[in-house]
């Protein structure tokens, strides 16, 4: 330790030496930073939300290849249910009637629509597969206004000697198409998740940055203002002493303190005042000596000078 140093050490308890100055400075800075971060965060999140929404919408538009149905129609036919082609001719009835859907179970042998006035099918003819083999009587005539006859709801199944062999046939690229479907689905889900994760990452980064900025600036502000407030506090103590007429020795600042130049100027000022006192003492001493030599040592004015000199000497001890 240098001769001019005293054991003043930093302590967290003394961080707020000059509360008014330190808190005013720091809180203003923190408040402004928080305000700017909120504004920046709102803008960043609006952009992030927008870009994420665009990406998600785009992703939704990318349809994955469908899963092929087992034992269904050839490849590509199962992608969309076949819709009847609309008729281009005005005088033609609806295409549904004109062109039965391919692959439907409508009987080609009986093109007459139900409910028409055409002759009903004979009872001994096997029933339409669409009706589940239910033996239904024919529907009444035009308009169907007459009360319907009682429907026999029991199924009469007559099994003749027959055999049925079920041999599921899979298309040759079945496995590839299933794989492609699920790979696409998983890829999309991953991209979806990645997008959402990116958005959340920005949000959390914003929150974390905001909190870190506020706390960091608060701590930094208090620490830095303390380095200013510390020397000021010390100078303040000396100012109190000087006000009371005591001009003690001035010690050095702690390591790391700011305002070193300012403190040096204070020391010079202190030294100047001390020099003034010493000069006064010297002048008074000469007058007292001369008065003593002239036999006026007991004069009240000399006594007053002695008192003044003693006070000044005491002040610079």
């Amino acid at each position, binding site marked *: 330790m240098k001769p001019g140093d005293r054991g003043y050490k930093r302590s967290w308890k003394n961080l707020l030496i000059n509360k008014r100055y330190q808190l005013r400075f720091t809180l203003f800075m923190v408040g402004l930073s928080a305000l700017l971060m909120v504004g920046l965060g709102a803008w960043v999140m609006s952009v992030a939300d927008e870009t994420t929404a665009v990406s998600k919408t785009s992703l939704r538009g990318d349809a994955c290849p469908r899963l092929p149905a087992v034992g269904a129609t050839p490849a590509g036919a199962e992608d969309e249910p076949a819709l009847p082609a609309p008729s281009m001719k005005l005088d033609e009835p609806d295409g549904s009637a004109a062109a039965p859907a391919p692959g439907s179970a409508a009987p080609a042998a009986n093109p007459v629509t139900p409910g028409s006035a055409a002759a009903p099918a004979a009872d001994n003819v096997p029933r339409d597969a669409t009706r589940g083999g239910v033996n239904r009587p024919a529907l009444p005539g035009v308009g169907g206004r007459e009360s319907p006859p009682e429907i026999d709801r029991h199924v009469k199944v007559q099994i003749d000697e027959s055999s049925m062999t079920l041999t599921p046939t899979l298309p040759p690229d079945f496995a590839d198409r299933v794989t492609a479907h699920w790979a696409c689905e998983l890829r999309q889900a991953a991209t979806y998740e990645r997008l959402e994760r990116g958005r959340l990452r920005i949000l959390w980064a914003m929150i974390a940055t905001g909190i870190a900025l506020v706390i960091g600036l608060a701590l930094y502000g208090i620490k830095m203002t303390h380095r200013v407030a510390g020397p000021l506090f010390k100078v303040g103590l000396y100012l109190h002493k000087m006000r009371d007429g005591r001009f003690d020795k001035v010690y050095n600042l702690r390591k790391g303190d700011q305002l070193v130049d*300012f403190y040096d100027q204070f020391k010079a000022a202190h030294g*100047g005042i001390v020099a003034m006192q010493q000069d006064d003492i010297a002048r*008074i001493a000469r007058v007292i000596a*001369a008065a003593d030599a002239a036999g006026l040592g007991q004069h009240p004015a000399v006594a*007053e000078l002695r008192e003044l000199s003693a006070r000044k000497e005491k002040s610079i001890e």
Partner: protein
Amino acid sequence: MSDPTAATGLPSPVPRSRHQRKLSNYLLDKNLQLRYILLVTLLSAVISGALGYMIYDQSRLASESIERDLQVLTVGDTSRQEFTSILAGKDQALVYEMVGLGLGLVVILSAYLVIMTHKVAGPLFKVSTYFEQMAEGRLGVVTPLRRGDMLQDFFGEFKAMHESLRARAQADVAALERATTALRDARGEADAAGRGKLDDALTALDQHVAGRKKQLA
């Protein structure tokens, strides 16, 4: 910045001016003020850079997905190039916006810090000017700080000390004057041998008192 020497009563080469802030004086203590500003600038740059990178990344993802869609929709179409360049331009604009916001953050915080630190450096500058005068033994009149300055408490302590010193110095001068007058009056009672020496000492004290008065003016 104010000129505290103008308030001391000492002969001043320049006329006394109003205490006003000047833009050129905002960096009074460069070391103190620039240290804060540099840190805040770096902090703002890091924050803006990190956020800018993240948001650009997200925007780039959106642009890529749109470009993918466009590839399907505009096969053999020249408009794809146009759309792609528009998307790239939007991404670029986002980068510029982020840079602009970062710069704005830096400028606002730096300007704020310059003003705030100036409000600290200003009073310190004023007090240090008085310190310089005190070092020369001059104890003039202390003028108050400007409105909005910080460290008002500290300046109050300084002013109290300065006024106390000044009052004490004035009292000392008065005491010395009284003593000089009294001893001159009592000169007749003094020994003839010591009279000359006493006269010299009193003359020197007179000069000293005159000097002190000048310093206290």
